C-alpha cells in the first residue's frame, strides 16, 4: 500500500564504494517502498545500523509485485537481501520458496512481536488500517461506525470506497452488524456474499470509487466525499502536512501488515537477520510513529509515546479493539470469483 504514489526513484546506496578489488563480498542490500517512508527508515533504521555495526548497507526501492521477486530469484543473480513486502507477497513468496524461513531465535524470539506479525517466512514491520475518514469541517456530527457510513439519512453526502471487492465486502458485512470474527466465515458462503452485495445495494447511488491510495484525502478535501474508506496514514498525513481537519473512526477497522523477508539463498543471511533484529527492537520501532503513523509490531514499542501520537496508531488498544485482519488466504482463493461478481454488480 505504501508504494502507491511513492515513485520508484532508485535511492542511492549510501556507502561510497571504496577501492576496487576489495569489494568481492556484496554489501547488505535492503529494499523498501521509497519516498517519504524510506526517508524516515533511513534516518531511524539504516544509518544507525551502519554506525552501530560499522558495516555498509545499500538501499533500493521497489513498487511491489511478487513477479519482481520471482524474476530476481530465477535469474540466479539476485542482489537483494532484505525486502519489505506486503502481506500477499509474503504469503505467495513463502509458498513458492522465494524467501528464507524466518529464524526467530536470531531476531529476539517470537515473543518480541505481536502475534499477527509472526509468520513462517517473514516478520511484521508495520501495521496499517483501512479506516472510516471524514472531514470535521463538513461533517461536524462525527460518524461512529460502518453502520453510520451506510446511513445516508443521518449523514448525507457521497461515500468513497476502494474499487474492488477486497475490503469493500468486509465493510458491508460489518455495517450489517456481523461481528468481525464472523466476517470471513460468512463471506466464504454464497449467502454471505449475497448479503454483502445487498447491503452495498443500499449505498450504491452514493458511492464514488477510488483506486489509488492518494485519492481519498483529495476527494475529502475537495468536498466531493462526505466520508470515505482510506488508509490511516494518508489521513493523518493530510492533517499534519496540509492542515486538514479530517477525523477517523477506528471502530472495526480492517488492518494488514508489511513484513521484512530475507531473500532465498543470499550470502548475507547472517547480516540480514542482524539487520532485522536491529530494526525490530521496540525502542527502534518507537521512532517511526511520531514521524509516520504506522503501528509498530514489537510488543511495548509504543508504550512510551505521547498520547497524541498513540491516538493515530492502529495498534493503540482503543483503536485496535474490534479490528479485523484482512485475510490474504481468503482473497488469494476468492479474488477471481468475487472480482467478476463485483465488476458485474458495480457496472449494472
Amino acid at each position, binding site marked *: 500500500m505504501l508504494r502507491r504514489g511513492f515513485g520508484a526513484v532508485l535511492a542511492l546506496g549510501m556507502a561510497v564504494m571504496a577501492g576496487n578489488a576489495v569489494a568481492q563480498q556484496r554489501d547488505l542490500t535492503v529494499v523498501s517502498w521509497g519516498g517519504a517512508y524510506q526517508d524516515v527508515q533511513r534516518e531511524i533504521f539504516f544509518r544507525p545500523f551502519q554506525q552501530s555495526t560499522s558495516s555498509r548497507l545499500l538501499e533500493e526501492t521497489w513498487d511491489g509485485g*511478487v513477479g519482481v521477486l*520471482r524474476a530476481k530469484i530465477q535469474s540466479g543473480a539476485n542482489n537483494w537481501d532484505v525486502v519489505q513486502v506486503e502481506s500477499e507477497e509474503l504469503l*505467495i513468496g513463502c509458498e513458492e520458496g522465494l524467501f528464507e524461513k524466518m529464524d526467530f531465535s536470531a531476531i529476539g524470539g517470537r515473543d518480541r512481536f505481536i502475534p499477527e506479525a509472526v509468520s513462517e517466512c517473514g516478520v511484521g514491520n508495520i501495521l496499517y488500517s483501512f479506516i472510516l475518514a471524514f472531514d470535521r469541517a463538513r461533517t461536524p456530527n462525527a460518524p461512529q461506525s460502518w453502520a453510520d457510513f451506510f446511513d445516508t439519512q443521518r449523514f448525507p453526502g457521497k461515500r468513497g470506497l476502494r474499487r474492488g471487492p477486497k475490503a469493500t465486502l468486509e465493510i458491508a458485512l460489518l455495517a450489517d452488524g456481523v461481528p468481525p470474527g464472523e466476517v470471513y466465515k460468512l463471506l466464504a458462503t454464497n449467502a454471505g456474499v449475497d448479503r454483502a452485495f445487498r447491503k452495498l445495494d443500499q449505498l450504491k447511488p452514493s458511492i*464514488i470509487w477510488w483506486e489509488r491510495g492518494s485519492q481519498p484525502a483529495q476527494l475529502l478535501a*475537495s468536498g466531493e466525499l462526505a466520508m470515505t474508506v482510506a488508509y490511516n496514514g494518508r489521513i493523518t498525513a493530510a492533517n499534519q502536512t496540509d492542515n486538514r481537519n479530517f477525523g477517523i473512526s477506528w471502530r472495526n477497522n480492517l488492518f494488514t501488515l508489511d513484513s521484512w523477508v530475507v531473500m532465498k539463498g543470499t550470502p548475507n543471511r547472517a547480516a540480514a537477520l542482524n539487520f532485522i533484529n536491529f530494526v525490530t527492537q521496540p525502542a527502534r520501532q518507537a521512532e517511526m510513529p511520531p514521524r509516520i503513523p504506522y503501528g509498530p509490531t514489537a510488543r511495548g514499542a509504543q508504550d512510551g509515546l505521547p498520547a497524541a501520537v498513540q491516538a493515530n496508531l492502529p495498534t493503540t488498544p482503543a483503536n485496535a479493539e474490534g479490528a479485523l485482519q484482512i485475510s490474504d*488466504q481468503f482473497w488469494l482463493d476468492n479474488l*477471481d470469483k468475487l472480482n467478476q*461478481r463485483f465488476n458485474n454488480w458495480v457496472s449494472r
Partner: protein
Amino acid sequence: MAAALVAPLLLFLLAVFVLPIGAFLTRAVQETDVAPVLPRTVAALSGWNGQGLPDDAAFAGLIADLKEARVRDQASGGGAIARAAARLNADWPGFRSLLPLTARRVVAAEGPARETLTGINEDWGTALPWLAIRRAGGPLTDFNLLAVLDLKRDAAGDIAAAAEDAAIFRGILWRTLWIGALATFICLAIGYPLAWLIATAPARAVPWLLAGVLLPFWTSLIVRTAAWMVLLQREGVVNATLAALNITDGPLPLLFNRGAVLLAMVHILLPFMVLPIYASLKALDWRLPRAAVSLGASPMRAFLRISLPLSLPGIGAGSLLVFIQALGFYVTPALLGGANDQMVPYFVAFYASRTVNWGMAAALSCLLLLAVALVVLLYGRLVGFGRVKTA
C-alpha cells in the same frame, strides 16, 4: 519498383504493429500454464468422459506431477505451481490454495493415490477440480473467448450461458458501442455547423477559426481530462459560478457520471469531426445550392437536397474517425466516469495490470477489434470507401 519503395514502411508496420499485436491477441486462445506442470494428469484426463470421477491414473499422475513440480519450484523459485493454480482458480475458485496445499502435502504422502488426495482435501473426491484441469490442459482453449461473450463450457463440455452474476461483458460491449454512438452524434451535431461556419467565413477569419478547432490537439489528452475534473468537481469552477449567480441552491453532482464522460469525449474528439466535414464543404461547388435557390428552392430544401448530400463523404469519414476512437477511450471514463460508465478498454487494463490475466485481456481486445472491424465493414457497405477520398 513501387514495392521496393514501400517495403521499409511495410516492414516497419509488420515489426512494430502487426507482429506484437498479433502475438498479444494469440494469448486469448493459448493455454500455457497448466500442461507443463501437470503433464501426466492432463494426459490421463484426456481419456476421461467427464462422468463421475477420473480413473486412478489421473490421481497417481497428479501426485507424481506435483512432487516433481515442487522440487523444480523450490530449486529455482519458478512459481510454476502458483501460475498453474492461478489459471485454474479463474475456472474453479479454490484452486489458488488447493494446488499449492496439495503439492506441499503429497511430498510426505504414502499409500494409494486416490485416498491420499481425498485425504488431503475432500474436493479431490469431486469432479469439479478435475474438469477444470481437463479444460485447462490446452494447448488451445476457448475459455477466454467464451468468457468475454458471457458463455462457458458446462460439465458435459457444451457451450452454456454464464451464471447471471458472472455475466458482464455483453452489457459492457453494448455500453461501449452506445457511448461511442452518443459521442459521435453529439460531435456531428456540434461539428457540422462549426465546419459550415468555417467553410463560409471570410478568408481572413478562417485561420483563426481553424486554430480554435486545432488548439485542443496541442494539449495532452490527460491534461484536458484532468482540467475537466477541476472544472466539474463539487467545489469547482462551474459549481462556484452557478452558486455565485444564484442559479443553483447547492453544488450539482457534475463529476463521475455519464454526462462528464461525454462532455470530455466530445471536447477531445470534435476536431476529428470538424476537419473532414470542413474539407468536404470546402470542395463543394457552391454554385449548386445557389442555383437551387435561384430556381425556387427554399434555403432549407437546397441544403437538404444539395449541400448535405454533397458533404456526406465528410460526415461519413468524420463519424467513422470519431466513433472508432471513442470505442478505445480509457483515461477519460476512468477519471471522469462513475462505475457504470466504464467501457471495454477499462476491463482490458483491469485484466492486464490488476489481475495479470493476459488471456482475458487479449480476448477482450479481440472483442473490441471485432466490433471496430464490423463497424468499418458496415460503413463500407452503406457509404462505400470510395467516397471517403474527397475528405
